[in-house]
């Protein structure tokens, strides 16, 4: 009896595995045409799944800049929802890839600010992974204070420069 069950289970698992591997094998074609119309046309083949088109239309996904407090790398609560939707995108689209570009304001050492930018990038990466995104989809690059979006020496401007930009390199 026991042995029979074991055989049955093994057989079932094998079938499942074969089925699975078949499905996996069927996935690549859409990847090849990932950027062409058919994929977006088929749209909600699976309801509730993100597609590349949503990056331009979904209000949450369009939020691609995360701001930080001075000398801090802690994620502010207001960015939690953005973390959740970008993590869901990464889950829904396993072939997608993103670069997190960490930045700092101009105050203090350029060398230290490179470290600070990386820390901020890592903080966003951790939050995405905590929400189910895969680390293998994420690359962190730090630009330190080298790529300001705003060049005045004021708190207003500094706040805009202390940021991580989410850049999708593969949609």
């Amino acid at each position, binding site marked *: 009896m026991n042995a029979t069950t074991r055989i049955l289970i093994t057989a079932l698992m094998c079938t499942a595995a074969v089925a699975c591997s078949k499905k996996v094998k069927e996935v690549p074609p859409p990847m090849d045409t990932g950027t062409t119309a058919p994929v977006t046309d088929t749209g909600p083949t699976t309801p509730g799944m993100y597609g590349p088109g949503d990056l331009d239309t979904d209000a949450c996904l369009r939020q691609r800049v995360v701001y930080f407090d001075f000398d801090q790398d802690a994620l502010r609560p207001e960015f939690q929802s953005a973390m959740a939707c970008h993590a869901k995108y990464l889950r829904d689209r396993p072939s997608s890839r993103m670069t997190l570009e960490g930045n700092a304001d101009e*105050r*203090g*050492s*350029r*060398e*230290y600010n*490179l470290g600070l930018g990386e820390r901020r990038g890592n903080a966003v990466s951790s939050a995405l992974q905590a929400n189910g995104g895969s680390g293998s989809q994420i690359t962190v690059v730090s630009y330190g204070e*080298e790529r300001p979006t705003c*060049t005045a*020496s004021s708190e207003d401007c500094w706040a805009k420069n202390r940021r991580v930009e989410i850049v999708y390199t593969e949609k």
Partner: protein
Amino acid sequence: MERPLRWLVSLFMFVSLLPVAAMAQERGLEIDIVGGTASALPIAVVPMPYQGSGAAPATDVAGVIRADLDRSGQFRGLPERDMVERPTRGNEVNYPTWRVLKQDFLVVGRVVDAGDGGYRVEYELFDVAKQQRLLGFAMTARANAMRDVAHQISDAIYEKVLGVRGAFWTRIAYVTASGVGSGSRYALMVADSDGYNPQTVVRSGESLLSPAWSPDGRKLAYVSFERGNSSIYIQDISSGARELVAAFRGINSGPAFSPDGRSLAMTLSKGGNPEIYVMDLGSKALRQVTNQMGIDTAAVWSPDGGSLYFMSDRGGRPQIYQVSANGGGATRVSFEGSYNADPTVSYDGKKIAVAQGNGNNYRIAMLDRSLGSPRWSTLSPGSLDESPSFAPNASMVLYAAREGSRGVLYAVSADARVRQRLVLADGDVREPAWGPYRQQR
């Protein structure tokens, strides 16, 4: 009648503008002396006329020497208009004249032909009170090296009077930036210590930072973002040949040549966290020096090559630490100020200058350990001063500051008494690094 006159006037204007244009090209940086000092030594550097038979040199040798000595903060040059006598050799010196003018020292000289279009500068230094000749030398150079000769004479005078080697005949490296966004342009430059003879080492559309001199003054290591991520290059200044030495995942920054030139300290975050490493430049083998949570970066070598000073926020806020070049535990060095960054170490290892932050004010501060208990002094007024770099004789510190939305360089004497601004004609100047002493070839 009117026409030829106008033509003549415009010709005259054109001719008189020519030297100015030539000067502007030769001179990339402009120097203003911000502070002054009453206790500086009065010295008269008398004009050194050309007494040859060919074309006179373009360089005013005495003028260059006077400007050098003024900038040091240690000397106060007598303005040329106050020189009632113009001796060019020792037997023409009339001591009472210079005593009345309250001069402690007097420099006289002349320029003669040296053959092959070269010149020979003969000069003498006198102690006015003792009526004694302290120096009497001659130097020969090609026409295009007359500024080098003048700087070397300044060095000799400085050393004879103060007992400290002069650092006028040295070079500085810095980064210029212009444009915004995708139109940004960056250049790594090298110039004489007084800002003349600027030379482009490398240009890039992406940010360049942290230039570091090799001990022989022939190469620069620097960080470039041209590959998208930070990476470290070493470039030969005269040939332009360059080598990519670090392009690991994560941060590649903060290069610093060891005193023997065989190793390069750097910051790498390939292990997940910014740590200090030392690369053997022959084998490219890496040795990890720090291993601690927190950002460890901006390493510089102690003069004996046995240890590294670096900044770390392992204790919460960025402070300066010292660690053996072979690794192991680090000792905290800075205990004043909530933010100490970008250390630079004097040739004798006794002084460390840093960018010190306090609220929104960042100033250059110096920790002096030569007199027993460590003593801090502030060298700059702020508010966004950074990247200090000692002259090889530690008499001055070069640093970057912001004026409006533009970066400028300042050089300040180590006693904070004289500060001068080095301004590039256009764009932003930053990331200064003072080169080593130059060698006679």
